[in-house]
């Protein structure tokens, strides 16, 4: 694993319009090829942090650098081509075919006229087929509507789409949150292997501790918008785990004891 830094976040702050602090002075440096898991309870700022990397969320303060390119208004478009994203709810065009969804991952490199006719380059078609096979789908899935597939299959399509532009960085925002444990494991294995082939950096937010320990090269624990743990999975023992999850701060200033009610609210807040 090379040690050159691929993603560099410096002193990121984010305050929402209503005054809520989502991110508080977050520094993070992820080297090339690392599978970095961001772990933490819902509302910890994992999603916000991921969305800062490709500029979907504009931080109130702080610097973002990806592949040596600083994120500014001008460089945003260029930077986003190198940063793929995998979403919790798959975010596929459900009425479009699987093929169209995967090919749409190559859109930034396709001319408008070609996009209008759906006339993708032959290499792009070949690549789409390659990745669909790679994620375990069959040729007969190509022309099925994406919405007809099961959740696990849809996320496979999402992964194939993400790899269409040979990304340097893959952001995976709770990629398996809506899938069952066995399929979650399959999907994360796929993601990790595909990223390793390209030597791509993966920043993956998760809330399942066992998956984080199994797949992460490194675990970054977050709570209330702050990084509270950063280290190898082996260092992430049960004591640290309970400190990460117990007494979750609800942002009211006063820590509330964890009760059944607040656990339910936590689940609702993650939607």
């Amino acid at each position, binding site marked *: 694993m090379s040690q050159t830094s691929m993603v560099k976040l410096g002193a990121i702050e984010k305050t*929402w319009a*209503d005054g*809520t602090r*989502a991110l508080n002075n977050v520094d993070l440096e992820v080297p090339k090829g690392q599978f970095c898991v961001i772990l933490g309870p*819902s*509302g*910890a*700022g*994992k*999603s*916000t942090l991921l969305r800062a990397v*490709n500029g*979907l969320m504009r931080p109130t303060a702080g610097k973002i650098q990806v592949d040596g390119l600083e994120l500014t208004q001008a460089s*945003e*478009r*260029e*930077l*986003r*081509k190198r*940063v*793929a*994203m995998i*979403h*919790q*709810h*798959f*975010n*596929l*065009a*459900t*009425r*479009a075919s699987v093929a*169209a969804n995967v090919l*749409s*991952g190559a*859109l*930034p490199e*396709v001319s*408008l006229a070609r*996009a*209008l006719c759906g006339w993708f380059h032959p290499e792009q078609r070949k690549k789409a087929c390659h990745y669909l096979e790679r994620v375990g789908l069959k040729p007969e899935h190509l022309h099925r509507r994406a919405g007809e597939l099961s959740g696990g299959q849809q996320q496979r399509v*999402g992964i194939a*789409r993400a790899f269409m*532009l040979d990304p340097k960085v893959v*952001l995976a*925002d*709770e990629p398996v949150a809506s899938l069952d444990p066995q399929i979650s494991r399959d999907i994360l294995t796929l993601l990790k292997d595909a990223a390793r082939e390209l030597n791509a950096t993966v920043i993956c937010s998760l809330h399942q501790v066992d998956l984080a320990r199994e797949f992460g090269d490194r675990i970054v624990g977050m709570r209330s918008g702050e990084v509270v743990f950063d280290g190898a999975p082996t260092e992430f023992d049960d004591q640290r785990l309970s400190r990460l999850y117990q007494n979750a*701060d*609800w*942002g*009211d200033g006063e820590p*509330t004891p964890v009760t059944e*009610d*607040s656990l339910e*609210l936590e689940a*609702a*807040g*993650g*939607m």
Partner: protein
Amino acid sequence: MSTRPIPVPPQGTRLHWHLDQPFRLKHLVIAVLILALLLVTGHRTEMDRMVSMTTQAVGNLVGLNDESQVVRGLSKVADSMWPPQMATSEEVARMNDFNADELPVFARVESRETTTQRLNEDTLQLESVTETTEVLYDPLGYVKTVFGKMIETLEIALWGTLLAVSLSIPLAWFAASNYSPNRVTYTLARGFISLLRSVPELIVALFLVLAYGFGPIAGVLALGMHAAGFLGKFYAEDIENADKQPQEALEAIGAGKIKTVLYAVMPQVLPQYVAYTAYILDRNLRMATVVGLVGAGGIGQELKGRFDMYDYGHVMTILIAIFLFVFLLDQLSARIRSRMI
């Protein structure tokens, strides 16, 4: 996904539960006001007189009273409209392109004798003169004319729809708040769409006939502009309401706005777009028969001409043709739609 925490009320807070009756005095007052409004407007639109005249007509039909203005008017029209006019006859001598070897199907040449009273200038006496004229008699001649006009009407409806679709797609882009470049373009596009939709086709056609002269140009433009107002609004609202998730996925890789709409919005809204456009085509066909009344081409222009010349037999043929066409197209579009969905 929101990362903001959900505020939790402090423990021990008493909540006040309260469930009201659905109606209050306010609602009774509103109901009385609506009733009063109905009575006033009903009188102003002569709804009371309509009821009494209709009652009279029904009484006349079942033999209870002898006089009904409604029945008299209707029966007069019905008498003069039946039978529908189907044939045409034209004097051969007045036709420029008459060719005795190539007559239209079913047509034949007849000679007709016409006797007229004429003043003899030498004797200063009235005498009967009999003239024989060759006449081309076509038993289905008028049906053919009406059919031709109906096809023209169909073409006006089709081109009106094409014009509306091609006008409303760029309009919808600027009128969708999430894709319009800025507030100014959004407001302008919305305003223009409202303007297009607010003027009825018939009135637009009236003015366009002044600009482009009698004929289908005015019809196509009038239908296209009005329908563009309708389609622009609905297309834009569908773009605004489309599921944001796939759009975010393409935005995240920097695909650009136009490609995002093409690949993340269009697949979602396409079935609705097809339905709107089919409705507009259906509506345009009915409207195309009407805009002819002000001279904008198609069957309406023929209808107006015949009506003004009191040729009620011809009018009947035209009405039957319109009914048949609309009915057949309804069946056809229903069949196409059931196959598409």
